[in-house]
């Protein structure tokens, strides 16, 4: 590893740490202003989780990782897929219906459901992509609209296909048959979602496609400079639609770990709001799969550790939502500040190298 790369890595880690420290400081200020016990809150948040909590953290992180990955794809091309929230709900609902009907036996059924979910997610995001490419509609606005439409649409469709479980008031799709569920990976006395393997594969594929293929190069090039991309023969319109659809396809996976590993049915109480966390995590992880994984772990960790706050110290666990939101802002600000610092560092380095070069020459001449 060259020195320049080492410096860059160091700066990257430093900016993330800086952002986290700033966010923790702001959270502490909020706690102090509200008169809540700061020390006890951090004592609980930073205590070592038990195995049961670790299981939850890893499971939630799997879900958040996929969400962050979906957002990151679009970020790489300078598109804002705010619509992961709607995309994963439409997709998870589709997967639940397909898997619940069980047209195919065993894991074939699972595979079919996953493919359907990805396809539906891709189509839902593709609408925004097509509108952007053909009519110049901002994908931010159209995905926000599509989120809201997804909410109503899924609510309506759910009522059409729902079966009421015995002794329960909640509506849900048919239970997924046992042979099509994805079993857990043993973790001490508990089990981690088996879907984590699929998530990891997608994480690797994300890195490989973006950094090692022609398509990934085109995508990143379009994100950094549309004109340069056009000059090298890339069709920006095609790339826009393709990127949105890939982003949507990954978004289609977000709800599936829960669906196949825990819930086995899509109901009105299915977890929502995972898409917006994905935006924060993609930013925190700088659109890099390993960074996103760490960001997802951090968010899941904060969520899990904050759960008992109300009982233990009498503080609402919603305080970590403030922390998470603030992280989004501090991350962006600190990356920018550190980037400027890095540029200055580089300039100084180059200047010094040039100066020493010149002084060498002068010495030669005088000698």
């Amino acid at each position, binding site marked *: 590893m060259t020195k320049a790369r080492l410096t860059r890595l160091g700066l990257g880690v430093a900016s993330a740490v800086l952002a986290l420290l700033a966010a923790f400081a702001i959270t502490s200020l*909020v706690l102090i202003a*509200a008169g*809540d016990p700061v020390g006890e809150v951090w004592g609980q948040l930073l205590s070592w989780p038990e195995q049961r909590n670790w299981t939850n953290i890893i499971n939630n992180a799997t879900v958040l990782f996929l969400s962050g990955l979906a957002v990151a794809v679009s970020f790489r091309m300078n598109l*804002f897929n*705010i619509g992961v929230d709607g995309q994963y709900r439409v997709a998870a609902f589709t997967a639940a219906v397909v898997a619940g009907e069980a047209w195919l036996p065993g894991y074939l059924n699972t595979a079919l459901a996953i493919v359907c979910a990805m396809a539906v997610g891709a189509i839902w995001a593709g609408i925004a992509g097509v*509108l952007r490419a053909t*009519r*110049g*509609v901002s994908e*931010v*606005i*159209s995905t*926000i*609209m*599509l989120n*809201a*439409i997804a*909410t*109503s*649409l899924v*609510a*309506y469709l759910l*009522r059409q296909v729902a079966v009421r479980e015995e002794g329960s008031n909640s509506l849900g799709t048919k239970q997924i048959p046992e042979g099509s569920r994805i079993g857990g990976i043993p973790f001490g006395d508990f089990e981690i979602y088996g879907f984590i393997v699929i998530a990891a594969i997608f994480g690797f594929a994300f890195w490989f496609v973006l950094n090692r293929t022609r398509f990934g190069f085109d995508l990143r090039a379009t994100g950094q400079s549309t004109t340069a991309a056009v000059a090298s023969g890339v069709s920006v319109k095609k790339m826009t639609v393709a990127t949105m659809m890939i982003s949507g396809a990954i978004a289609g996976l977000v709800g599936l770990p829960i669906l196949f590993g825990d819930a086995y049915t899509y109901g009105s109480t299915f977890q929502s709001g995972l898409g*917006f*966390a994905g*935006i*924060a995590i993609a*930013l925190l992880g700088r659109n890099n799969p390993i960074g996103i994984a760490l960001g997802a772990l951090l968010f899941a960790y904060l969520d899990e550790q904050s759960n008992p706050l*109300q009982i233990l110290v009498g503080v*609402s666990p*919603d*305080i*970590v*939502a*403030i922390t*998470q*939101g*603030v992280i*989004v*802002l501090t991350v*962006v*600000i600190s990356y*920018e500040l550190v980037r400027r610092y890095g540029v200055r560092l580089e300039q100084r380095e180059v200047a010094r190298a040039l100066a020493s070069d010149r002084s060498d020459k002068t010495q030669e001449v005088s000698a």
Partner: protein
Amino acid sequence: MTTSGYAESIAAAPPRARRKLPRWWFAAALFLVLFALSLLESVTGADDLVSRGTVAATLIAVVPIMLAGLGGLWSERAGVVNIGLEGMMILGTWGAGYFGYHYGAWAGVAGAIVMGMLGGLVHAIATVIFGVDHIISGVAINIIALGAVQYLASLTFVGLPGGGQTQSPKIEDVPSINITFLGDFFGDIVDKNIFFVSQTAAVAQALVTNLSWLVVISMLLLVVTWFVLWRTSFGLRLRSCGESPSAAESLGVHVLRYKFVAVLISGGLAGLAGGFLAMVASSNYRDGQTGGRGYIGLAAMIFGNWRPGGLLAGSGLFGYSETLGLRAGGDSVHALLLAVAVLAIAAAVWQARQQQQRAAVITGVVAVALGALYFAIDEVPSDFSTMTPYVVTLLVLAFASQRLRMPAADGQVYRKGSAG
């Protein structure tokens, strides 16, 4: 999808024409809408399209959307995209709940505005001073605001009578206007059931019965916004920051200062929108009260082409469809289907005469499909009336985007001294 004559009045504007709509277009559009709805009532037999209750409920539904849209207008006219409106509204609902309960109704209004401005302050600091991408900052504010009010609610409302983690105690009402003798007079006319006259009377009756002062103030704010932004030098400078900040700076305008102020005002208006939801549309703060209205406000502003009049038309359309959906409106929304089908036929004929054959065919097919739908079903499921504003916005963006013109430098980060 549904639409009312608002959309028609906009679609009726000649294409590629620079011809401006006459001053009184809004009054004319309102008149047309009322007439069309009266006609629709007598054709379809749906009787709740223009009742006093519907009109009053529509006003209540329109105002928060319009205020949020106004917030968006202020900031986007200065070149700062604000999708944090939703979060600022959420802050406003808590502000109204807390200050309204402890210090009375008008303190609640002020509290809502101040809380919204706090959200605006965060957005302004992030986007204007630190140059953070506007969308990222907006998303962050929405996350923070949601967490913050839930945290604050459990801190401040737990233990109060009727309060709890998810709701505040009842807030004192904002005073309202009641002109009894006029209300009775209009009520008599409504009962006579004369075509169009009764419907107009129902509107008038709604305007003199239990009309909250906050509704009046909000409408005034719309007029004030129009005046300040389009008729004063302050407004001209502010808009120049959204169109061409470097040109503005070279003329000596403090671009960053104007943007900062605009985003603060934007936050205050969004906060007021939240306060309205807590104090007028209901009578206490409740968790999840905004229900995405910040986004609808943004949509209304885009629908209205970044202009106050269009914004009002957009919020009117969205608020009306929301109201019909809530008032067991399956029947009413169903009736509107017919109106939309007729409008679509008219549009198809018009397009055909403009030599736009392909567009005309598409519109014609849509019209026939809607007409068929009208006769095929008896009632539109409420979920579809909920999604109406969003679908309409998508369609408007998709089909009228050439006619929309947002501020030229909207959403771009401006750094001081870029004018060179």
